[in-house]
């Protein structure tokens, strides 16, 4: 899931300055799980903005809505009625969601209410940890199911480094050493032999340095005729 956190309230107010008709738009997917932009958080932010507006004479009219997934056109298109007359949408979705809204409603300013951080998972209630770097060339099969790209501070493919001390990384005593975890995971799996296999320099071409990545599944792409037959939304 994508993990994000709300921008500080004062920053939200600064973003909205100069606007009057505001829609706070949340997303029921990842950001709801990480308690940043679900229905409840939308309610709190919207009510906080109304209170701030009343106290400071901003005359903001703040409406609120939460869609199933702000990253998908089908759900964002449901906002047509709710965005009418609005001059700003404060998106409490991840950066993907905010961009989807902006692309479908180009005449309305979409403002990011969250700082999108990473792809990770809830470690325990209220704690979210990055797990995947989206490098496009997965090596989890060699590393006992633990990603060395994001979970090792140096992204070492043949670790650990000299900074691994008692299972912790030298960057912080709170950060476990990924290569210590990899060792123990492979030990549990009875596959320590994999550590003897040198992982060669990684192919970074599918990673972020080549511009925005795109995956096309030709068998799923609809031809213009199929789109017309199925009544697909443009």
């Amino acid at each position: 899931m994508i993990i994000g956190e709300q921008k500080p309230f004062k920053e939200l107010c600064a973003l909205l300055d100069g606007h009057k008709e505001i829609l706070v738009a949340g997303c029921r997917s990842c950001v709801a799980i990480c308690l940043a932009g679900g229905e409840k958080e939308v309610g709190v932010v919207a009510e906080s903005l109304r209170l701030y507006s009343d106290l400071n004479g901003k005359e903001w009219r703040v409406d609120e809505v939460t869609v199933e997934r702000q990253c998908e056109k089908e759900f964002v298109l449901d906002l047509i009625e709710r965005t009418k007359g609005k001059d700003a949408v404060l998106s409490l979705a991840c950066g993907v969601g905010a961009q989807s809204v902006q692309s479908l409603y180009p005449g309305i300013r979409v403002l990011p209410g969250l700082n999108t951080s990473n792809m990770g998972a809830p470690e325990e209630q209220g704690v979210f940890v990055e797990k995947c770097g989206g490098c496009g060339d997965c090596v989890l099969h060699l590393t006992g199911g633990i990603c060395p790209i994001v979970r090792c501070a140096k992204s070492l493919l043949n670790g650990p480094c000299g900074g691994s001390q008692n299972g912790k990384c030298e960057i912080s005593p709170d950060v476990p050493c990924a290569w210590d975890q990899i060792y123990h995971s492979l030990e549990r799996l009875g596959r320590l032999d994999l550590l003897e296999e040198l992982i060669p320099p990684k192919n970074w071409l599918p990673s972020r340095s080549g511009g925005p990545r795109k995956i096309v599944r030709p068998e799923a792409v609809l031809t213009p005729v199929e789109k017309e037959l199925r009544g697909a939304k443009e």
Partner: protein
Amino acid sequence: MRIIGYICDHAAYSAADLAGQSGLRYSSDVVLIRLPCAGRLDIIQVLKAFRDGADAVFVAGCLEKNCHHVYGNIEARKRMEQAKGILDAIGLNGKRLEMFNLASNQDFKFKEIVDMMVKRVEELGRNPLAVRA
């Protein structure tokens, strides 16, 4: 002056009731709202109260480790801490909001809570939205 007290049905409401039966006098500026549990209270309801002109809000639940709903009072306290931060950021002093724990036989403590919140409003001044209204 208008103070809203969100009080749980078990300990806090009983304490308020006992305060009445015991003849303890407390400010009539307090409006009490009975909740099934303090943990039922959401930040939104607190913010709405301030938007509607409340000068202060307090939440009263069972004593810690003695909540009728096991951990509702702890949830409520966490939420109220968050709400205090929001109030500070908005520009309404977070001290206008307070969470308390008490037992059903602590009628005197209920009176103390109300007295404390009245004093706090006197120190902080009225909610500008209440004055405007």
